[in-house]
């Protein structure tokens, strides 16, 4: 099954993430990753969902049925900037520390914490570059790892400007306290 990257703008209300995740589950699609956070507008959140589906059009149409979902697009074939971040705690005794540091230099990864036998490394890049980096450092001994999941943005003028939907969103003062 093909992986699709979907970008969605949703009203920032409690429960909206549950609705999106629940819908994708019950319609039988697999979520590979789901990243959610604020957009440029406070009332509107932005999601990047990576799903596996034969019929991604149904996924987007079903998402549109959710009242709080404002805009959904499959950006898989669009020119996009895609990024993911990983934070890794590596086993790093003094013997391998030097090697790790130089590897980080190659991948433009940042060392954000150094302990007596561990290091925490932060690395951001395209999902494939992140994947690559993880494979390279794995032999040193990964003690902990957390990936954020993919976020995506379409290049150029086209895209997902949350501001377009905001004027209407200012209509009342209670929305944010409503489930």
């Amino acid at each position, binding site marked *: 099954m093909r992986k699709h990257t979907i970008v969605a703008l*949703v*009203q920032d209300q409690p*429960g909206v993430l*549950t*609705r999106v995740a*629940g*819908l994708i589950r*019950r319609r039988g699609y697999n979520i590979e990753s789901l990243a959610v956070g604020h957009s440029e507008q406070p009332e509107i959140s932005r999601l990047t969902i990576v799903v596996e589906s034969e019929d991604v*059009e*149904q996924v987007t*149409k*079903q998402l*549109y*049925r*959710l*009242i*709080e*979902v*404002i*805009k959904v697009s499959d950006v898989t074939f669009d020119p996009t900037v895609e990024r993911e971040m990983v934070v890794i705690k590596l086993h790093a005794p003094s013997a391998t520390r030097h090697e790790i540091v130089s590897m980080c230099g190659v991948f433009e990864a940042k060392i954000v914490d150094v302990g007596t036998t561990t290091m925490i490394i932060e690395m951001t890049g395209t999902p494939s570059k992140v994947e690559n980096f993880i494979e390279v450092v794995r032999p040193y001994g990964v003690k902990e790892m957390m990936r954020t999941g993919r976020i995506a943005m379409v290049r150029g003028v086209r895209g997902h400007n949350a501001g377009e*939907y*905001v004027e*209407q*969103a*200012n*209509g*009342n003062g*209670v*929305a944010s*306290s*409503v*489930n």
Partner: protein
Amino acid sequence: MPENRTGAQIMCEALIREGVDVMFGVPGGAIMPFYFAMWEYREQLRHVLCRHEQGAGHAAEGYARSTGRIGVCIGTSGPGVTNLVTPIADAMMDSTPLLAICGQVSSTVLGRDAFQETDITGITMPITKHNYLVKRAEDLPYVFKEAIHIATTGRPGPVLIDITKDAMQKSVVPNWDFKLNLPGYKPNYHGNRKQIREALRLLAHAKKPLIIAGNGVVMSGASDELRIFAEKLRVPVITTLHGIGSIPESHPLNLGMPGMHGWVHSNKAIQECDVLFNIGGRFDDRVTGKASTFAPHAKVIHVDIDPSEIGKNVKVTVPIVGDARNVLLALLEDMPSQDELSQLHGHASDWMEHIRDLQDKHQGKQQYKNRSATENMTLPPHDVYDALNATMAKNGNYVLVTDVGQHQMWAAQLLDFNAGPRTHITSGGAATMGFSVPAALGVAVAHPEKTVWVVCGDGGFQMTNQEMATIIQEGIKNVKVMVINNGYLGMVRQWQELFENKRYSGTPLSGPNFAKLAEAYYWKGITVERTADVQTAIDEALATDGPVLIDFQVEREVNVFPMVPQNKSIGEMIESEA
């Protein structure tokens, strides 16, 4: 000076502002403040006390489906609202505008497994069009307005509002001055004009065109437009289970029902047609059979107000997202040229003749009524339908409600619905046994002037028959229940007979003496065991000034034919007993 109102008073006023005048419910701890307030508004807001929340939910559905207005049901927290889950799911499947109002424990104890606490917004997320948890009285005017707007617009559906007890009790100055904030909810009512013209172009050049009319035609009030459109083009019309009534059964272009228990000629017409125009139907699997084999020669035009229905089950050539009535009006405006029409009409008569030939050859409706296989039976179920048909033909002021199972399919097949849309009320998508008696209560509340016929099985009847008490308490007289009593969960038994070597596992079913049970509820009860007594009993039910139950003790093992076995092509029908 703006006046203070409790949250519960605001709820009542919000409902009255939206034109609600009746609600079906059962009180309990968490919803008590609403019942306390309701008393003050009882002149404008009638409350019908049901015996079970499931009954309240189905009653609200019956009210909604027979009127097109929103149906309102009420339950308290915990088991009260979980009992509403079935009618909510039913309303979701059949696109019924339903508002479920639920009491919730106080916000101070919410999330702590308090007495009768249930996460009903979590439970109903997949089976509502939208739902809300309200913890502040200030939010109630907005939420009620938005909820009813969402439930009744676009593709209608159930909306649930869960309100904490303290929000109902708190006194605030309500703000009724706001704009709805729904940037992600903009139903498209007007179909794309280019697609509408393309649909007409396809139809005009078709040799074997066919219309499928579904629930959308009924809900948008497009019956007249559909009939005129079909007549102008001379295209035959198939009505789905929920499309029944959208065009009169007696209309020469009406072919009846398609699908699993549809007519052979209807299904064959679908399999042969070259242009299939589906308006307001969702290509349910009970209609399509094995979807990959459905209408193999057809270019499909699909009109639906819900874009997600288009292309979901069947590949579509011309998608039209819009309200059925608006789209039909646009189609009528852009009618093909006389030249094109006369070409179409030329093909149409051959095509229609061919379909009617098929109908004569196969187990068509008339032939089905003149069955020979039932000659030795004391009371074949078909005789009940024959008699009811005769009565319905004489007294057109009725709504007929069915339950779920064999009797439901017989009703859809054998009864002639000529009394317009919203006169055939049934549970289709969810197929909820126990739907009919409470739904009839809701229909009767909405239509005290009409006869509300209920056809149900002995299985479904026993699931919700407690609402007979509600019907009496409300002084309702126009409900006439006909139990097609065969002592089985008949449809399951039929499948066991046909596909499981007659292993009647869990299907033989005993019941009480239904006539006596009816009398215990202060209804009139009649038992009928022979064909000769059927018409008399129905006449008596109609003449009685009060609710009546007739227990038709029919032949036990009669099957519904024709039938498409599950996941088979609708071209492969079992037409009669082997």
